[in-house]
């Protein structure tokens, strides 16, 4: 197996173009597991850890550009206020060791339906900047996930960054696991209220072949919320929102949980997350 170690982004893109079968490795917390369990024998590994730019984030035109190689620990420490939903999701990832190594770009590369960054990024309506020697393009996050552990990258492309607009309203993230830390999600839910646009963003994890939004729940809620008066949320609205989130999912039974439980827990998480978010919105007035 070849080990390619580009020192710059340009070199990385050239290497990927020359070796489309090379598997990029960032934190390695997914890649090494696959190698150790002998799931894959790639012809080459493409190590992105020497590409400094990849592990940087900055703000540009009012949006955060989060380099694909920024670790969860740094998202938590440095972006807790700017990207609260993603930071909440990051806190639930693995253990301290995994959060130090694992990256948001790696989560996108793996595109597992159980990846914790996805519901938060979906709710925040992020977009993914991908690049190749052919050029750069931007993919809306909801179009990035194309199937179970598949994404919209072409064989010669790499994820460069994730673009997220800092929120105009509260965000929440919740995840079910069958122990209280260090657990893969059984179901997860991300919520963002966007008062500037008067829209609602959602993201569902581990309850469909890909991470997905709940569009019907979003438009329903956007229409029901009293954006100006910030009046109390009717319980019936919260419940209906939960039911519509549930209806958007299509989970399976597996060793981690039953489909019925996943559906049930999504409705509860959505209802509770909405109550917390709305409470924050009321207080912010």
């Amino acid at each position, binding site marked *: 197996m070849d080990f390619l170690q580009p020192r710059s982004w340009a070199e990385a893109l050239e290497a990927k173009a020359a070796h489309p079968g090379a598997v990029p490795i960032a934190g390695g917390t997914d890649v090494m597991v696959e190698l150790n369990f*002998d799931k894959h024998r790639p012809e080459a590994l493409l190590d992105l850890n020497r590409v400094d730019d990849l592990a940087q984030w900055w703000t540009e035109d009012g949006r955060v550009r989060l380099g694909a190689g920024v670790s969860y620990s740094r998202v938590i420490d440095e972006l807790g206020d700017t990207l609260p939903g993603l930071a*909440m999701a990051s806190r*639930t990832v693995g253990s301290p060791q995994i959060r130090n190594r694992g990256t948001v770009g790696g989560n996108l590369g793996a595109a597992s339906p159980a990846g914790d960054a996805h519901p938060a990024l979906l709710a925040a309506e992020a977009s993914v900047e991908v690049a190749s020697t052919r050029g750069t393009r931007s993919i809306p996050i909801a179009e990035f996930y194309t199937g179970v552990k598949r994404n919209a990258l072409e064989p010669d492309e790499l994820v460069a960054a994730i673009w997220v607009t800092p929120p105009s309203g509260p965000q929440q993230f919740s995840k079910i696991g069958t122990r209280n830390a260090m*657990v893969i999600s059984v179901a997860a839910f991300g919520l963002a209220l966007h008062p500037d646009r008067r829209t609602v963003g959602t993201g569902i994890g581990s309850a469909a072949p890909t991470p997905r939004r709940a569009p019907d729940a979003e438009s329903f809620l956007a229409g029901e919320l009293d954006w100006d008066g910030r009046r109390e949320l009717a319980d019936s609205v919260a419940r209906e929102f939960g039911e519509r989130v549930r209806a958007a999912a299509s989970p399976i039974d597996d060793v981690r949980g039953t489909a019925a439980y996943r559906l049930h827990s999504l409705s509860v998480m959505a209802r509770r997350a909405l109550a917390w978010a709305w409470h924050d919105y009321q207080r912010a007035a």
Partner: protein
Amino acid sequence: MSTPATQTDTATTGRIGDSPLRPDGVQKVTGEFAYSSDLWLDDMIWGATLRSPHPHARIRSIDIGAAMATAGVHTVLTADDVPGRNRVGLEHDDQPALADGIVRYQGEPVAIVAADHPEVARQAAKKIVVDYEVLPAVTEGRAALDPTAPLVHPDGNLVRHLRIRKGGTVPDSAPVVVSLDFEVGMQDQAFLGPESGLAVPAEDGGVELYVATQWLHVDQRQICQALALPPEKVRLTLAGVGGAFGGREDLSMHVHACLLAMHTNRPVKMVYNREESFFGHVHRHPASMRYEFGADEDGRLRYGKAEIVFDGGAYASSTGAVVGNGGTMGLGPYRFPVVHVDCFGVYTNNPPCGAMRGFGCVQAAFAHEALMDELADRVGVDRIAIRQLNGMREGDENITGQLIDSAAPVGELLQIVNDLPLPPAPTGTRDLRDLPGGVANTTHGEGVVRGVGYAVTYKNVGFSEGFDDYSTARVRLEITAGEPVVTVHTAAAEVGQGLITVEQQICRTELGVERVVVHAKDTQVGSGGSTSASRQTYVTGGAVKAACEAVRTAILERAAAAARTPVAGLRLDGGKIVSSSGEVVAALADLLGAEAIEETVEWRHRPTSRIDPETGQGDAHVQYAFSAHRAVVDVDIELGLVKVVALDTAQDVGKAINPAAVMGQIQGGSAQGMGLALMEEIIVQDGIIRNPSFTDYLIPTILDMPPMKIEVLEYADPHAPYGVRGVGEPPTISSGPAVAAAIRQATGLALRRVPVRPEHITGTL
């Protein structure tokens, strides 16, 4: 070569009742400790195992051609290459070292490969072509007893049926009758150090095996049989053990590594990875149980009835003894005038099950403790009171008619846990880490209900039912560089429990010498028996004590003769022989010179006896150890998630030889029991393990385990050395049922299965 060296302890102080630091403690925390997976010889090659993908199949043929032809491969072996009797097993020789003709569970070893590199060995193993004829499988314990079930072994699917009949026939009715069915899932020992070892061919045609195990001599016996070698040609040395909990009592890679080493005449190392480890050792028996208790109006028990079925999987391992324990201990530490117990162990095509901490008592405790709660509720008394009313006391007979002839503080232990302060009711904004779901942010208090649960248990210590249970200790006293040094040599496995330190503490106490060297654990000394059944401090501790006494007698006799004084009144202290008046009679250095005094003692606890096959009556056990737990849980009843808030316990340990180690055993055992109640389960469907990884076999993390309040009682057992009582298992037995009871109280649900999953609490199965 880095193989286990003789331990030279840096701590030179610490007698019985002290808590000296363990020699392996700092090494383990800093990552310096050499585990069996770290064994290394420069000229070694690597072994790998091909395992059956089927729960039950006939092997039509095995083609090793492609594997043999792989560059770097030294040899490929199958059942045909086993020189001796191709059968191993703890109680029954029913398991081939390599499958011969039939495979009976998914993961059964079929062929082994030795190659220059572990990766080459693994790839070559995949090239072995096995032609299987898949056979119908039986994959459920009760179904195995059906006369039409497929047979796992020619003689039928029953491994053992134990009957206990006491006090006449069970009455047709009683003022209060409670009953339940209960299921316990398959728990794994989940030790962190995978199965591993290094076999080195010896010039005399024998083999040296360095291996992580629980009982060197029982391994040796089985390896000798498979290799057709006498014991003196199969020499075992204990390598660094990364946890055991029963899962290393059976053989794993032992025979395989030896076979490969002898065929290739090269040292062969084998290390399982985590996934293979799930197939490489036995698990805790899943159990299916039916219980019925009858009582007076006031809750006093009149009878206890139980039917327990343990699924032993494809090979017997220690299923017979698990049935022995589960049956004889199966009604818990209560007084029953009339008893009717049937306990079965069966063969199925599931993964083999055998020893795990708590050994048959863990499963039964979930049932009898749930039923005691039910009884309390029906009678209208509290859950402590019902247990105290019926709790066993010293002088009682247990259900096999054995006299409980030392402390049986059931009522007191319950009182202690009941009197411990409860955690305060939550107020204000709570840290997410204190809530069910933790930082995954599923509740800020919504849906959270608190529950409290209690459980009490008793566990037999040591090997039972007439087993010749002994340990051997060799103790040597000599002068090295002018200083007296004791060397203690036993074959008793240190698996992380702290036996090395206990051996040193006993030697210091008995011989008054500070420097104690613990010799490597190997088969150059007689058997130490198994590191299981909470027995080593008792039995090997007893042997070390007896050997020290023999050395001391020899020394004092010599000193008395030299000083022309009577032996009586002389003692050893600080390297000197001192008279009853405190006068120094002689210094050890002067008395011994260049000579050493060495004594070897084989020590036995008082004998036990077989139980009557019809009535189950008899003095089956050596000693009983008691513990009680109180669990406090917060349950998110809408999401089914649980946070254990407190898990407090009281336990009688007879005498705490090393109080810090006692605490460690109680904490670890409690966590393991809690794990079974909440999350630990090997999920087996149609004989196939669905979650052979730590991704999906979950064990508690630091955020799942609450801080514990631990109260230790020391009621000496007059029959045991220093009064000790086994410590390691009781906490694993009473913690889980207490957690399950607390969840029942919080949710109001019956919850008749563990682990309790969120689906059970939310009705979404």
